[in-house]
């Protein structure tokens, strides 16, 4: 157990609690360790059918033709769903709050944009029959040039891979999310030292131990019980209603206890097709990813690239930062545009920098789509920003602890996204960590506080 330490802050008033602040046992843990925990896949249904996708072997290709006859002839085959069966086959999750453009096909139509994109959903009596039927679907493709790198994708001669015609997510009238605070060029002019560095991070899988999946059961009164392990029940209910053109009051989402998510179960994917399948067959339909699909098809954390240019005074004060960032959202923008905005609010990190300029891009490529993940928009920036801090410290010969403490944001400071800082405690966590490792900070640094 961690060591709790009292540090003086204005908000630390004495209060007594009887339930808050106690290390009470986790609700449900007895079920976890005895096998009693019930997750989505643990519910049994009479007449359950199984859905498997026919997936593209190509990163980017035109679908010339698709022949389902081999699948239809497979024993146990019930029906296939193709693009024409999806009432609203183009969405973007953020459309719920009026953010577009819609760019994602639920089932590929005419073109596949990433390796593994689904072209047809096969519903069959057993998982084995679904797999066999899916293997018998014949698809003729015409391969198209693919692009995987964010900066390559933004070049004039790059293949355009989106339905809306741009390989970037449009932020209002801009090709990126912008931060403009102070005068960054003036800041660089005043700086004693300029530090520039590029950083790259690879895409990461969430790896929830419970794979993503949904079972949809039609009910006798014409509704649908949607058992699903999503992280946002109403969020996906609303999107499902749109995609499937079924009124929301006919959808009942059931979940709430999930075998890990880490952001990977925020996009609806399996819900739409399980609901549609149940709607069109009248049978309960199960659509769970295989582990291979969870790894290679489900959303990842986006890979990022950052170019950081900092202007620093010899005493260590950072006076200007220009950051150009690119998030690789893959073939479809699920929520990465939002992570990019979240990253834009984090460009100075936990430091006060008077002049900040950022262009943050959400870029489409022919990769498996990316989405939210634990630390969305921030984790990978922290790698870049905090590596940069040590590079700066060495370059100007200032102790890395001092560099961070003298630039640390404090209550009342203005952040680059023009929100006043409050409740800050960066200085104090640094001071406590220094003490923990036995690093005796100089008195002037020990005396710093986050609040006045």
């Amino acid at each position, binding site marked *: 157990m961690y060591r709790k330490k009292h540090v003086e802050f204005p908000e630390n008033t004495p209060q007594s609690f009887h339930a808050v602040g106690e290390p009470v046992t986790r609700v449900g843990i007895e079920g976890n360790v005895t096998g009693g925990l019930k997750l989505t896949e643990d519910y049994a249904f009479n007449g359950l059918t199984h859905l498997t996708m026919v997936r593209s072997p190509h990163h980017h290709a035109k679908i010339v033709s698709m022949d389902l006859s081999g699948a239809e002839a497979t024993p146990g085959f019930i029906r296939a769903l193709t693009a024409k069966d999806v009432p609203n086959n183009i969405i973007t999750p953020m459309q719920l709050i009026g953010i577009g453009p819609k760019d994602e096909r639920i089932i590929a139509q005419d073109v596949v944009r990433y390796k593994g994109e689904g072209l047809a959903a096969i519903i069959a009596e057993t998982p*084995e029959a679904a*797999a*066999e039927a899916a*293997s018998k679907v014949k698809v003729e493709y015409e391969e198209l040039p693919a692009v995987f790198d964010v900066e390559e994708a933004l070049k004039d001669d790059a293949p355009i891979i989106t339905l809306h015609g741009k390989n970037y997510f449009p932020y209002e009238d801009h090709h990126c999310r912008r931060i403009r605070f102070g005068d960054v060029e003036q800041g660089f002019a005043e700086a004693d030292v300029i530090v520039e560095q590029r950083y790259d991070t690879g895409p990461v899988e969430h790896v929830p131990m419970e794979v993503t999946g949904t079972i949809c059961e039609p009910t006798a009164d014409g509704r649908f019980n949607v058992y699903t392990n999503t992280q946002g029940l109403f969020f996906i209910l609303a999107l499902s209603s749109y995609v499937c053109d079924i009124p929301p009051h006919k959808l009942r989402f059931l979940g709430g206890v999930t075998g890990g998510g880490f952001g990977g179960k925020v996009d609806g994917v399996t819900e739409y097709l399980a609901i549609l399948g149940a709607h069109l067959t009248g049978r309960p339909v199960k659509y769970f990813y*295989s582990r291979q699909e969870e790894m290679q098809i489900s959303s990842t954390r986006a890979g990022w690239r950052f170019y950081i240019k900092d202007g620093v005074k010899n005493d260590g004060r950072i006076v200007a930062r220009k950051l150009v960032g690119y998030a690789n959202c893959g073939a479809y923008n699920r929520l990465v545009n939002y992570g990019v905005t979240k990253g834009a609010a984090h460009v100075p990190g936990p430091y006060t920098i008077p002049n900040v300029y950022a262009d943050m891009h959400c870029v489409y490529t022919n990769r498996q789509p990316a989405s939210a993940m634990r630390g969305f928009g921030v984790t990978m920036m922290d790698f870049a920003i905090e590596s940069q801090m040590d590079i700066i410290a060495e370059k100007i010969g200032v102790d890395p602890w001092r560099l961070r403490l003298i630039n640390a944001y404090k209550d009342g400071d203005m952040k680059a996204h023009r929100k006043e800082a409050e409740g800050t405690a960066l200085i104090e966590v640094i001071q406590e960590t220094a003490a923990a490792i036995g690093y005796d900070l100089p008195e002037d640094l020990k005396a710093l506080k986050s609040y006045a």
Partner: protein
Amino acid sequence: MLAYETPGDVADALKLMGGAGAVVIAGGTTNFGDIAEEPHKYSVVVDITKLGLRKIARDGGVISIGAAATMADLLGDPDLATLHGAARAVGGPALRNAATVGGNIIYGGDLVAALLALGADVVVSRADGASTGPLSAFYDGDAAQPHLVTEVRIDTNKKGKFGFYKLARRRDNARSVVAAGVAQDTSGRVQIGLVGVAPRPVVVEGPAGLMDAPQSAAELRGALDAALAQWEPPTDSHATAAYRRRMAPVAVARAVAG
């Protein structure tokens, strides 16, 4: 519909294996997951765990290990202490309770690095009969013809020194970057078995007396690079071919150092 057959002797097993769509399982650790997911790809599962091949027998210093013996079986046999490091390097406990010596040989697993170094012989049955030969030659053989590895033999009379090292990206239950077994017999001759340096396991001769006069990776590198020059190591999500090539002498030096 997929059939499941459990032949009682090797001849029956080979007959079943000759049929179209036959798939052999022993421990099942490598392929039963695939079979269960896509059974339509196969016609018959040939379960070879009832062929009486799980025995570990001793005969005048030669230990014969049945192909169906598991990694756990090896670890439970004190006479096979030489192989324990390599057997423990395979998977985790549940996997070692199922994974067989025969499967490890067929799929070129970490155990093979040790077996090759020790100059193990392997008994292979084909329709025209059984033959015994060096394990190293097995990988040059014709894999297309139905064959069954039934036994592997180690001659413990050639007493000497042995070391094993598995270099992997994490300590436990990881695919190897390079696994190396190094054995020196009483005459000082050194054989090095390697997994991860080529598309198949390989054995190369090492500097005489290496176990008595250990060399650093840097010292070993020139000779090993030359000996392995004909092979392209695999690239996968854990390591590139170049990294595997670079790690070969490191794994050997560490196997020697113990």
